């Protein structure tokens, strides 16, 4: 089922799978990435498998994306974190959640665990960075570049010719978000956590593709985060969720099961 819920100043579009009887079943929340993404990325991939495995699954469209409201301003990381807290409140949810995020969604998940640790059982980042100062620099660069390239109208014809109509369509969606919101300026101005990652107290699973560059964080994460597991998939770029759905699903399912059993143990 999909539903629209009031979350702070906006209405959030969400989809839930599973029994939702609140009887001690694990709660898994999936957070998607920026611009060309929506809850559909999970709805048709990982979501059904987690529901079949006996978990309650919550997927939602981030502000500005999919069928959630698109306010003109308010796109700092802390706004996205507040939205997630408000969404769980709107559902009357008090279980600590296993929060899974892809790309920017992984940063939202990690920030949520840093600022609301009691609401989080575990965190999974798929091809993402924790919200530290260097991340804001990467986002500033990437967003400015994408905004400039998409602003050239001829780019759509070029994208269509070189990557196909589907990618051109997605680019149109991204362009619309840039044109109607302050997202490109807001994300790099986000609140961050200290570089020592001491704020990350919840167990962290971090998945990477070895060709994306983000896997370079592995030694740092392993050294700084107490309960951290990192997995690097070989011959894989940034699109881990889309291109390696089975491995991603199995790794996260095993991780959630493991931590659910650990919590249930006396």
């Amino acid at each position, binding site marked *: 089922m999909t539903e629209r819920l009031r979350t702070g100043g906006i209405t959030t579009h969400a989809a839930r799978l599973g029994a939702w009887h609140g009887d001690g079943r694990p709660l898994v929340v999936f957070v998607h990435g920026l611009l060309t993404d929506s809850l*559909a990325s999970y709805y048709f991939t990982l979501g059904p498998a987690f529901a079949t495995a006996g978990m309650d699954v919550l997927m939602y469209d981030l502000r500005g994306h999919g069928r959630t409201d698109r306010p003109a301003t308010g796109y700092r990381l802390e706004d996205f974190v507040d939205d997630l807290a408000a969404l769980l409140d709107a559902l009357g949810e008090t279980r600590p959640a296993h929060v899974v995020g892809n790309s920017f969604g992984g940063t939202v998940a990690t920030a949520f665990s840093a600022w609301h640790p009691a609401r989080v059982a575990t965190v999974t980042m798929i091809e993402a960075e924790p919200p530290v100062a260097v991340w804001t620099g990467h986002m500033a660069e990437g967003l400015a570049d994408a905004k400039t390239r998409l602003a050239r109208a001829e780019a759509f014809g070029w994208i269509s010719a070189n990557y196909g109509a589907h990618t051109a369509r997605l680019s149109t969606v991204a362009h619309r978000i840039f044109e109607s919101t302050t997202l490109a300026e807001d994300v790099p101005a986000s609140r961050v956590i200290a570089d020592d990652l001491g704020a990350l107290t919840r167990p962290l699973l971090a998945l990477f593709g070895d060709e994306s560059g983000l896997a370079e964080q592995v030694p740092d994460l392993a050294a700084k985060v107490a309960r951290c597991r990192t997995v690097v998939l070989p011959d894989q770029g940034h699109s881990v969720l889309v291109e390696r759905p089975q491995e991603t699903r199995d790794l996260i399912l095993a991780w959630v099961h493991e931590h659910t059993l650990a919590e249930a143990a006396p």
Partner: protein
Amino acid sequence: MTTDLSTDPAAVLADIAGMLRTVGADLGLDDVEITRATTFHDDLELESIDLVVLSGALRSHYGERVNFAEFVGALELDEIIALTVGRLVDHVVASLAAAA
């Protein structure tokens, strides 16, 4: 759901066309003719999030018997892009027949 649902392909096509008009109301789909050959991506210009909403509408109408998320989840990206209304109609008809 206890309602008697038709497994006649023409009736299912009419039902799905009705759902698509609801899902696509704000996308200007009111005047678009929907046939078996209509594609979700190129003809209706639906985005993947619209398919999620359609999935909710299918579930409300057909209940547990039709699992659209599972159906789409088993398709490759290029198959999803090429997906026609007719292929969904066939899936619904087969699912209803299997559950009958």
